[in-house]
């Protein structure tokens, strides 16, 4: 089946070359970082986790969102999701590959990364991530690939794949919950240490995942004969809408606890993000943008006219994605270090090396997803023609 990825038009190849070039640039930047050390990044002894760990967190969420597709399909027999199931599973594969690469780029001794599985430490939340992430990647790759093969042969899904799918339900939730636990169990970082972290992670994950799937379906619909079906798009929109509302509610609850209790440990980071402290305001515009984007997306999606017009819907999805990414993919991780453990405000700007490496990883991930989607759409076209 993979051979289908090598047949494409001019546009396809230009896109592939573009992504390959981006990946190459990222690789060069990474080699430079490997040679010189992490001082090339914007991280410091004050803000010791930054852009890489943020991307890891955001992408694990997108990966977990596959649950919002397979759950309705296999548990509630919502057939309209079947055309996009494989797409969402392959999205999971790509995003998890990226998450793992982001962890890899962040550690100081990448050649020792196997020390994690070699010294299993059940008390460490990071250990669970290194177990659940590759596992979920494999699970989705196997499920997606077999499902595609079955579709090609117009056969039914083998029963063992069904079992794997059922295993993947709790897996997705656990995977993202342990990601949240990395943060939620950290004494002394009041911004993270909140029980709502895991629920918030899941809602933002489902919202972001659905938004990306909607946008991808639209793009694929334009570029190929793929059709997600209006029913599927509308269902995804509904899920995203409610996930966004719940997320906004969770955020509001966080603000209340922080600002009504006046406990500095909980409120200081929020105060920094909303208003800045002592003239340090680097994250303030971003934080406002995040809040505004989430509210705008909710506002837009409340209109039936927006939900049913594909262009408007895509715009609403992109607005939502901006908000969700700034929240989880940019601010959530470094902001918890501000103020630092000594009560000082030491800000964090990512460096160009960090950004280039990240760009490279995103390009590589998109390259994987593009290839997998190419195969998928080609097979779907064949089966449609044969029908």
């Amino acid at each position: 089946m993979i051979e289908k990825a090598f047949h494409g038009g001019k546009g396809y190849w230009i896109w592939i070359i573009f992504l390959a070039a981006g990946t190459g640039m990222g690789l060069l930047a990474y080699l430079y970082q490997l040679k010189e050390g992490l001082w090339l990044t914007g991280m410091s002894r004050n803000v010791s986790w930054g852009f890489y760990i943020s991307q890891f967190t955001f992408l694990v969420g997108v990966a977990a969102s596959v649950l919002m597709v397979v759950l309705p399909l296999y548990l509630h027999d919502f057939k309209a999701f079947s055309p996009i199931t494989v797409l969402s599973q392959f999205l999971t594969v790509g995003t998890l590959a990226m998450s793992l690469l982001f962890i890899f780029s962040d550690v100081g001794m990448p050649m020792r990364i196997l020390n994690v599985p070699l010294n299993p430490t059940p008390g460490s939340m990071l250990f669970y991530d290194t177990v659940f992430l590759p596992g979920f990647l494999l699970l989705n790759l196997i499920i997606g690939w077999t499902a595609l093969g079955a579709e090609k042969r117009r056969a039914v899904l083998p029963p063992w794949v069904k079992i794997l799918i059922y295993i993947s339900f709790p897996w997705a939730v656990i995977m993202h919950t342990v990601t949240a636990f990395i943060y939620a169990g950290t004494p002394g970082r009041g911004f993270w240490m909140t029980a709502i972290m895991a629920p918030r992670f899941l809602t933002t994950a489902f919202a972001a995942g659905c938004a990306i799937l909607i946008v991808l379906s639209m793009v694929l619909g334009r570029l190929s004969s793929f059709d997600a079906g209006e029913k599927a798009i509308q269902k995804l929109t509904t899920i995203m809408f409610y996930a966004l509302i719940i997320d906004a509610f969770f955020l509001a609850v966080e603000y209340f606890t922080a600002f009504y209790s006046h406990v500095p440990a909980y409120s200081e980071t929020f105060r920094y993000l909303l208003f800045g402290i002592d003239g340090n305001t680097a994250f303030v515009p971003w934080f406002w943008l995040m809040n505004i984007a989430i509210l705008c997306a909710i506002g837009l999606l409340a209109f039936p006219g927006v939900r049913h017009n594909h262009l408007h819907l895509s715009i609403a999805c992109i607005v939502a994605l901006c908000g969700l990414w700034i929240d989880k993919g940019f601010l959530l991780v470094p902001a918890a270090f501000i103020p630092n453990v000594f009560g000082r405000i030491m800000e964090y700007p990512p460096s160009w090396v960090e950004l280039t490496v990240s760009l490279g990883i995103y390009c590589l991930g998109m390259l994987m997803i593009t290839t997998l989607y190419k195969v998928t759409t080609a097979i779907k076209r064949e089966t449609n023609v044969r029908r």
Partner: protein
Amino acid sequence: MTISRRKFLKTTSVSCLALAAGPSLGHGYELLELPGRMSKGPEELKAKRWGMVVDMRKCDGRCTEDCIGVCHEIHNVPFIPEAEHQVMWLFQEPYENAFPDRSRELVSKVLKNRRFLLLCNHCDDPPCVRACPTQATFKREKDGIVMMDYHRCIGCRFCMAACPYGSRSFNFRDPRPYVRKINPAFPTRRRGVVEKCNFCQERLEVGKMPACVETCKKGALVFGDLDDPDSEIRRILAESPHVRRKPELGTRPSVFYLF
């Protein structure tokens, strides 16, 4: 005078150490000069749970360069010029930074101008140990020292996020070029791993007190067994009011401050 520059520096640093050791010049120097003499010490010092008292009534902050200097020198701690990548085992912070959760206003004059000596607290319930995914950071069962295996650490810095005291430093750069004078008796670290104070575990092994404790001629640092009700440290803690940093986090630091 025809002393070469290097020799001059050497002699001065030696005499600095000697000065730091106080009136008993030769004695202090002998104890501090580590290479080659490590094995000569008497039996290992033992405790159930090592702890330290930092008596800020005695530590006026004027000679902290000495204890910090000795600690960093014998442990090959690099001197990294840029503040954001510094490596620190023993360091100083003003009151409001050492205890940021305590009153920010109306601090007494005595405290206001004090520079508190900070180090790893060797917490009884250390969050850094819980966080580490490779057990490169671990708490030694026999005496409660929180130790590090530099050969196992993958540099994920989870422990830095987990430590609420800023006790841990990551080697953002290759530390070796920044070590002023390498002490061959103690390992150097490499780029990409985390490090921190080890309560001079290597000195306890050969019957010596931690270097900072030994250097302090004012007796501001007291080291001992928190588990032994008859130890000096327990006597001091029973007699004087004391505080620990961020006790509300439940980490149970083994370093106590008197002021």
